[in-house]
């Protein structure tokens, strides 16, 4: 019996959240007595895939068919089902993302498998298979026992503590995998794709610097961007800021935007409405900078500074630069 882990690729490299999923899957395999098998779809060099072994994978199945080059959740889910059937996998693991959820859902329906999305910790496997997931946008947790023979788990970032320095495994063998593709998965044509390639993706970022209405206008964003650069951070914003078009919609963090779980979240001029907190409460450490000492965000913060963001941000940027 094996655990199958799907890894997302970004320009031919396994995404960090997917490497976490591999480490998670390897631990589940250890608990349930099997091996961890990784599935990668799309163009990638073997050297970029074999590193999954360092995270505990026994082998990597790689389907490099040209049709799978463009992200297609229907065809990808079909390939995932075929890989699971070939490997006799009873547990399938994906990392939480739009693609991960879409593939997991379609594969679960095909395999008649119980599916739990938003998993925050390793399963308990003594007497049943119990998983805990985040619900109410981080306001609570639910523990569910999955009873079906095949189980599909979509895991959140930070579901497992990843110690990069303590990686012990060697490289994994990469095997070519040729799923049978179906025409019915390719009925849609792609009209256009817009991707901000240079920007660090918010869901992958370890550090996020985010701005709210307290930034006073799009023309005042530079100090925030400077701090983000100095820290190697991604930039985000609150809902009012994206509604006002000060920043692009894909930067909107919150209940109805992107949910993030970085190690460090720095909020600048964001008061901390409950809907915004819902999008960031998976963060390990939260810093709040706001001129209003009564801002509700301070209650959810680990560190706070009351003051003018435009005076504070440059000081932080200087201090961050001198770290390196």
């Amino acid at each position, binding site marked *: 019996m094996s655990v199958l882990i799907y890894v997302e690729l970004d320009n031919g490299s396994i995404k960090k959240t997917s490497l976490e999923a591999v480490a998670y899957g390897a631990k589940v395999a250890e608990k349930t007595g099997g091996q961890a098998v990784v599935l990668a779809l799309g163009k990638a060099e073997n050297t970029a895939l074999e590193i999954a072994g360092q995270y505990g994978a026994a082998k990597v199945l790689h389907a490099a068919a040209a049709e799978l080059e463009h992200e297609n959740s229907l065809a990808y889910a079909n390939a995932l089902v075929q890989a699971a059937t070939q490997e006799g996998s009873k547990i399938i693991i994906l990392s939480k993302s739009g693609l991960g959820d879409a593939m997991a859902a379609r594969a679960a329906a095909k395999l008649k498998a119980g599916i739990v999305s938003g998993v925050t910790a390793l399963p308990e496997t003594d007497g049943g298979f119990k998983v805990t997931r985040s619900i109410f946008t981080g306001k609570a947790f*639910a523990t569910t026992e999955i009873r079906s023979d095949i189980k599909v788990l979509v895991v959140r970032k930070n579901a497992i503590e990843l110690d990069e320095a303590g990686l012990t495994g060697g490289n994994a063998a990469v095997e070519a995998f040729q799923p049978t593709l179906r025409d019915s998965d390719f009925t849609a044509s792609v009209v256009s*794709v817009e991707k901000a390639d240079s920007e660090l993706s918010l869901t992958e970022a370890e550090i996020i610097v985010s701005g709210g209405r307290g930034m006073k206008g799009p023309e005042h964003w530079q100090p925030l961007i400077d701090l983000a650069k100095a820290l190697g951070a991604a930039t985000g914003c609150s809902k009012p800021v994206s509604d006002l078009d000060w920043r692009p919609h894909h930067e909107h963090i919150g209940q109805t935007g992107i949910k993030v779980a970085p190690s460090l979240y720095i909020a600048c001029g964001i008061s901390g409405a409950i809907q915004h907190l*819902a999008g960031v409460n998976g963060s390990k450490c939260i810093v709040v900078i706001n001129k209003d000492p009564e801002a509700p965000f301070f209650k959810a913060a680990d560190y706070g500074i009351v003051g003018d963001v435009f005076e*504070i941000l440059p000081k932080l940027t200087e201090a961050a630069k001198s770290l390196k």
Partner: protein
Amino acid sequence: MKILVCITNVPDTTARISFTDNDTKLNKNGVQFIIGPYDDYALARGVELKEQYSGSLTVLHIGEADAEPQIRKALAIGADDAIRVNAEPQDSYFAAAQIAHIASQGTYDLILMGRESIDYNSGVVHGLVGEMLGIPSYSPVMKLDIDGNNATITREIDGGKEVLKAPLPLVLGCQEPIAEWKIPNMRGIMTARTKPLNVVEPVSVDDMTAPQTYKLPAPKGACRMIPASEAETLIKLLQTEAKVL
């Protein structure tokens, strides 16, 4: 154009969440329930398309009778009729199986719902329904236009967006800015009272999961305040104390 819009009945985004019955049930006491915000976007766009193409729109809810005010609201916003499957769904698979069953009894061109419910945040029901019906599913959809038998869809992808052209029928998970939320007007509210709301019993589905138990997160420790005049010391603290740099 036949449209099916699936709505959830969920605690308001500002609701304080707590549990009762030994942490096995949500404490509904004093909690205001609303149509799921993402479902509300799906409904709004569904109503616009229905009006544009003189189609019909059925709203579907899986849940108990206490959701009826929200179902009536959907009728007031512009749905023609409603179906309530009389069962509290235990998991995504169960909910999807009910939706797929209802959908298979009509010939819907579009099955719309929110990208996720804001209570369980799974975001998998549209994919499950799509596979169960053997038709494509896409999410999260930010823009939707129909041209004959094709839909043009703008969906959010990691760090950007993608525009697809796909033939109907489709299952779509929706999010802003697909349409503006609609507020029912007086005429809508009056006519909603007489629109059909059919209650049907669920089809049987194998239990994929057992009933769940809930817990609240551990309370957050106090926030450490740093004087603005010593702002730069924060970076050191983040490195040595919080160990996140």
